[in-house]
């Protein structure tokens, strides 16, 4: 029960943040409880389910496996940030039209994981898309709708030459 606190300065969704946090505070708890960014969810706290997926320094990480104090000077992006920037607007629209979410608890993690795959460009096969989500659990949809929505986004981006 380490109560030692540290100051941490980082950029979250483009906004500079400076806070004192307990050394044991995970990044996702920091985002949710200190900053009120509750779009990143906590499902297992052991890095398995993917509900806490956020972007750290441009790459997706498990928010429950990173301590907030490890993020000194880092750039963190969450589903709220990606939504407001419009970066994943087309992906979100395909999720909506395809009903690729039911309860919505896994969805922010799914979107961040999908965007990482899509940002590589090209159109992955359905099997490749399915494999990409091996670290994101969904208990509601059965996954097919999610795969459909990601595939449709990949095709649309390829057709327009959009690289995001």
């Amino acid at each position, binding site marked *: *029960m380490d*109560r030692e606190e540290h100051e941490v300065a980082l950029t979250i969704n483009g906004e500079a943040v400076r806070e004192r946090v*307990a050394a*044991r505070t995970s990044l996702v708890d920091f985002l*949710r*409880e200190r900053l009120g*960014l*509750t*779009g*990143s*969810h*906590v*499902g*297992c*706290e*052991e890095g*398995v*389910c993917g*509900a806490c997926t956020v972007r750290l320094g441009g790459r997706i990480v498990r928010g429950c496996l990173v301590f907030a104090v490890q993020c000194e000077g880092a750039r963190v992006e*969450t*589903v*709220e940030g990606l*939504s407001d920037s419009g970066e994943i607007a087309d992906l*979100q629209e*395909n*999720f*909506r*039209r*395809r*009903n690729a*979410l*039911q*309860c*919505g*608890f*896994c*969805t*922010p993690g799914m979107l961040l994981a999908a965007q990482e795959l899509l940002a590589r460009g090209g159109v992955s096969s*359905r*099997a490749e*898309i*399915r*494999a990409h*989500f*091996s670290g994101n*659990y*969904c*208990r*509601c*949809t*059965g*996954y*097919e*709708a*999610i*795969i*459909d*929505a990601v*595939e*449709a986004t990949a095709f649309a981006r390829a057709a327009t030459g959009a690289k995001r």
Partner: protein
Amino acid sequence: MKIAADSPPVLSALDRPNSYIGRSVPRPDLERLLQGRGSFVSDMALPRMLHAAFARSPHAHARILRIDREAARAMPGVVAVVTGAELARVVTPWVGTLSHLAGIKSAPQHAIAVERACWQGEAVCAVAAHTRAEAEDAVDLLRIDYEELPAVTDAETALDPATPVIHPALGDNLTFERRLAAGDPDRGFAEADEVIEATFVFGRHTGATLEPRAILADWNEGEKRLTVYQGTQAPHMTQGVFAKHLGLAERQVRVLTKDVGGSFGIKVHIYADEMATVALAKLLKRPVKFVADRLESFLTDIHARDHRVRAKIGVARDGAIAAIEIDDLTGIGPYSVYPRTSGIEANQVVNLTGSWYACPNYRARARVVMQNKNVMSQYRAVGHPIATAVTEGLVDLAARRLGLDPIAIRRRNLVADDAYPWTSPSGLKFEKLSQHAALDRLLAMMRYEDLRASQAELRRRGVWRGIGIASFVELTNPSAAFYGVGGARISSQDGATLKLDAQGGLWVYSGVTEQGQGAGAVMAQVAASAFGVPLERVRVVLGDTDMTPYGGGTWGSRAAGIGGEAAWQAGKALRHNVLEIAASILQATPEALDIRGGIVVDRDGGAERLSLEEVARILYFRPDTLPPGFQAEPMATRHYVPRQWPFAFTTGHQASWLELDPETGLVTLLKHWCVEDCGTIVNPLLVEEQIRGGVVQGIGAALYEHCLYDEKGQLQNGSMAGYLVPLAAEMPDIEIGHVVSPTADSELGAKGAGEAGTAGAPAAIMNALNDALAPLGAAPLTDMPFTPAKILAALGRG
């Protein structure tokens, strides 16, 4: 991207201009979830809020000798450390029995264990602190002395005289037993050409909702009111339970569900730690929040299934079923779960097994026994996966013995589509099923003959693929026959209140709830269609006992069929009310007018007369201009409960196509099909996604999910890493087809669709696996989940 065609349906009794019935419109509430701007209970915080954490018994069965709280109380941030005996002065214990389950018995269960813990994970002491971390720190410093007691962990021996009785006052460990005999099973078996016996085993599994159970309770001492934010499927039920056990009137209790991160039947029960959280809020006069962590979820969320069914089928040489007999043994926890009990699933297995086949000779026994393991209760498709796998497994075994194709034996025995209404041997009343039409549809979709040819060809090349068929029925739209008649305060009726707002918008308040199924969307579509406004003008309010009509919530595949009919009738009533207002403004008769696309029009010809905005403006702000004595009524409420039929049964078939690797025992799912008849389809996209999600949960039960206990009652795999669930890479694409036989019990004609996928998938997977194994000389597998180790053992390579 495959999106079901969003085209208006063919004309029917439901047809209205601009109807949304039968259209795949997107759910209106998805945008906030997609932006991470939902509001789950686990996201919430209130001023002065405390966090609860629980010390939980490390033993399956133990006497609590002493709880030393001094060190815990001294920890920073700790506000209270509360034992079971102390909390029992705030919240009374409960007993999970229902009077229509004759003879069912259980023992009083406390919010926090008093004197004795009866399963590993039962809460024995609570800490309330400023943060969850501080509360957990304090829990670690509680010194609790236990005297370990013998644990009952094997259902097979739970009733043996040598086995300790968990609750001595009950006399034995038998919670519930039911016996049934219909027709003449002895004669049926005696006259059968072949009698085939098998034992089917269904492992314990659980829901693993991605958002764990979450509750935030606040007691306002000034108002003397309890407000509970709770991830629940049935807020009016929990309102009643909180009131009863805290000694309050229901009007003193408000339950709000917020967004709920998955439920599947997990969040429809009363949990001891949630009762404790509510009691702590009342005791401490401030908000207290509890969110189960993942280990707590595995240890305390209800587990499901855990059945062992000895089964027997007699058949004539032509495939006609002569008799079916089952003996079901199911091991629950140390308490029957409140208030729905832990006896309903076994009761359903007795009711359902064999019920879709035209054989009158049936004998069944089900026994439900207590164990010192986590509590067990109803989970998605209650009883159906067991009844379906037993029935369909037996039918396939019989077909193999007789050298019949699995389709042929089903054709021979399925109740004819024109034979309805039909009563099953157990007394289930089927209004209208469409088994044969649905089978036609399934065979066409999967190209059955081609698939068989492909299978034969591949076998010659050493590729082992299997086709598995499972026919099923599904209980939906439950009337009071399910719980109410047994004395449970669980509403089978539901209500909808519709309101025209001051801008001409439509508000819908419904007693059903949303956990992602799309219940809110269905209410919006039905209300918009009945009243006559575009979907964009509808606002739906669910999950708030202060606001919505009293209702049952969302479970038992009831939201669309029961809540939807209430919304349909309320929409018609409000249209009538608003047309009376419009008629008084226009000096017309209401019968000559209609509301279409948000505009009052002439019923004949459709000429636009008046916008709803204008009607609303006049009725709210210039009622002085309405005729003398005329009172506008811009709200309407209607309620509905099925009365003609106790349940609206749906029907259908599933099929699985899979490949087996005999070297590794691994199964690759290549494709899955489901044809279902859920009556009127309000939103095809949502129905299909319910089926897909349900199928995948059924696949989880068949292949992966298992709560593993050792002989001392210790859970061995209480983590997301240890408990396997279906992942995207392992799941097949799932093709859905429909046959539509509306129920005549309601005008909407909708039956439920939420559980059919889970009902039939395990049987389809099992039959496909055994079809693949057959040419390899392996005995049929009937012990779920079918792990690679079991498959290799069946192949003699274990």
